[in-house]
């Protein structure tokens, strides 16, 4: 397969670029929190996530505060005597039924416009059909005649065997490297058609904010878009249990400026 060979340098160069841009982000929160990602959707989802974290922390302070206060103030060992008449309080009970209802509905409302945006496939300029197999991916650039498979990189595959004697820490991008990545243009809305050949898989790159199942016999769709100023290599994995090697079918996406992408695509079409 000449295609595989010719482009094996591309992910490496793009990867180095991405590593540089992603470095400051990696340093702080990335091991503890959801990535902000590199697309409009992923940032919106990140913001929603953070709002919910803060709301939950707020509620936690109030409820846990009340519990802790009760545990401190009303200890038998401190001589507390039970007030066995405190069994109902209509106003209080109404309040803690109604107030949470309002907060919860308010929490759900921001999802509406985001969902509408997520489900809106219009305006996409490129369609890639993604097919899950046990245990690799196939990418087909519809209408371009370009199609290839994407499997776990050899280095990771060797290291992950039981008793391989290879320390995963010495393998670059252990379990997150493929032989041939999906290449997409930045700043472009890309429609992905998802399906599978055998069992259900799920396509997920955290930096794009979305995951969706690839179901045999059915065609699911989702769209991704990488910020124009954030070309790079983005990594993800199959997210739906699909058998023994579920953990070993990574997804690597190289996002490059449209002009470079066109050149890459032309080259692929020529060799196809």
């Amino acid at each position, binding site marked *: 397969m000449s295609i595989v060979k010719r482009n094996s340098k591309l992910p490496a160069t793009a990867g180095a670029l991405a590593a540089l841009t992603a470095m400051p982000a990696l340093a702080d929160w990335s*091991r*503890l*929190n*959801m990535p902000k990602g590199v697309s409009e959707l*992923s940032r919106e989802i990140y913001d929603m*996530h953070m709002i*919910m974290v803060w709301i*939950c922390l707020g509620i*936690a302070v109030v*409820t846990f505060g*009340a*519990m802790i206060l*009760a*545990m401190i103030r*009303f*200890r*038998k060992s401190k001589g*507390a005597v*039970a*007030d066995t008449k405190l*069994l109902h309080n209509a106003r*209080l*009970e109404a309040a803690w*039924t109604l107030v*949470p209802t309002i907060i*919860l*509905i308010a929490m*759900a409302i921001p*999802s509406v416009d*985001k*969902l509408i945006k*997520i489900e809106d496939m219009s305006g996409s300029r490129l369609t890639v059909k993604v097919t899950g197999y046990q245990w690799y991916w196939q990418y087909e650039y519809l209408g371009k005649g370009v199609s290839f498979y994407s499997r776990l990189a050899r280095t990771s595959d060797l*290291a*992950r065997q*039981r008793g391989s004697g*290879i320390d*995963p*820490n010495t*393998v670059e991008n*252990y379990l*997150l490297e493929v032989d041939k990545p999906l290449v997409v243009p930045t700043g472009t809305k890309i429609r992905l058609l998802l399906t599978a050949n055998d*069992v*259900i898989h*799920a396509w*997920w790159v*955290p930096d794009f904010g979305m995951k*969706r*199942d690839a*179901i*045999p016999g*059915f065609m*699911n*769709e989702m769209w991704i878009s990488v910020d124009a100023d954030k070309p790079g290599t983005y990594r993800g994995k199959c*997210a739906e*249990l699909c*058998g*023994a090697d*579920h*953990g*070993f079918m990574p997804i690597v996406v190289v996002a490059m400026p449209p002009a470079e992408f066109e050149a890459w695509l032309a080259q692929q079409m020529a060799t196809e």
Partner: protein
Amino acid sequence: MAHGNEAAGHGDHHGPPKGFTRWLTTTNHKDIGTMYLVFSLTMFLISGLFAMLIRAELFQPGLQLVDPGFYNQLTTMHALIMVFGAVMPATVGLANWMVPLQIGAADMALPRMNLFSFWLLFFAFMLLISTLFVPGGAPASGWTLYPPLVLQTGNAFPMAVFAIHLMGASSIMGAINIIVTIVNMRAPGMTLLKMPLFSWSWLITAYLLIAVMPVFAGGVTMLLTDYYFHTSFFNAAGGGDPVLFQHVFWFFGHPEVYIMILPAFGIISEIIPTFSRKPIFGYEAMVYAIASIGFLSFIVWAHHMFTVGMPLAGQLFFTLSTMLIAVPTGVKIFNWTATMWRGSISFEPPMLFALAFLFLFTIGGFSGLMVAIVPADFQYHDTYFVVAHFHYVLVPGAVFAIMAAVYYWLPKWTGHMYDMTIAKWHFWLTAIFVNVLFFPQHFLGLAGMQRRIPDYPTQFTDWNMVSSIGGFGFGLSQLLFVWLIIRCVKGGERATAGVWDWPHGLEWTVPSPAPYHTFEKAPELH
């Protein structure tokens, strides 16, 4: 007192037969309850062993101990055994022991069926566990059994399906028994709205069981015919739909999580008043909250499958209905807090576990809210964030409540007080390690580690190590629990009828240990 006359009136033939026959032939609710509880504890330890093997493999990146295929068998069996073999039988065992004592009934309404449902469950699990030794190994598709993956199971497939049928039949019979008992055998004067909340929680749980177990049985039967008779319920090539199974599964599976947690709510509602020395705050609200959670649990199932691709309206509906469950759940949390308010609180082991439940279950509730919101769930779905979420509601939620119940009622069952020092050690080790075990999994999930993988990229190493250390600590701490129970059964300081400082409810009016037959004459209610 009713039990006083009974020994004199009926003679010896009512005593239990000696030895092994007693356990094979008993129809006594207390004996059957004990068998359920012992069975549950055994399954908890076996399944816990699987979990520790999982955590050992995940201690560092690379594959050290198990092959990926066997790893999937471990996660699948861990879940199936914990859900159906440990948590559910424990709550059934508690119901068997305590519902008749709480409502003043002499026994369960259908004692032979009661015994039958226990032995069905026992053999269901012998069958399920034996799949580990058949060609192709145990089911490895996750406890969710999604096709087409589950159809790749080897010889274990029909065995697992039949095991599920058996445990379903067992659960349905158990549920019928509890409903019939509660509806017909309450002591005169014990109206429904005077009934203790543990019995209430089980009444509603029993209805959930009857409603959803047949759905699950139907779903796995369709899998069976797809596998052997080439039907195409879930096979797209034949006009079927793999996602249909997910709908069927979660229509069962979501109420199932409430089947595990509602009895826990009931237990906590018994314990917090006792150790706050004050009746439960907002009793009616507590009953209505359980009932509304029971109802809502039927209309939220698809929140487990947001990523399958659903119409916009469907996504919004399931987001909203799911969030609404937080309202009655919140009411319960607030009412428990209000019960403690202006109480006189002491911190015996049952109360310690109940308080830990209160805090940690609430944390699970928060992450539950987060995963309910659909665009954000596109990130959370199938990651360790979800693993952390449901383990927070099931371990420091359901399991802590069950342990609290054991510490609460053990003196009533055995007639002995247990060793308070060991109990406190068990509590603190368990409560600390459970957080070391599960809290870091939130971070792992958010940072992008997906579920059900035996090996992971190296940036996840640190938190996986922490989590594994927590797992080993948690697992080993449970040996203290086993040791404490064995010692308490064998002997110890004699327990009084009331056991605790502020006993409330009929179960504390009979001596400890509870006589073999209680309430043969219905008790008088004040």
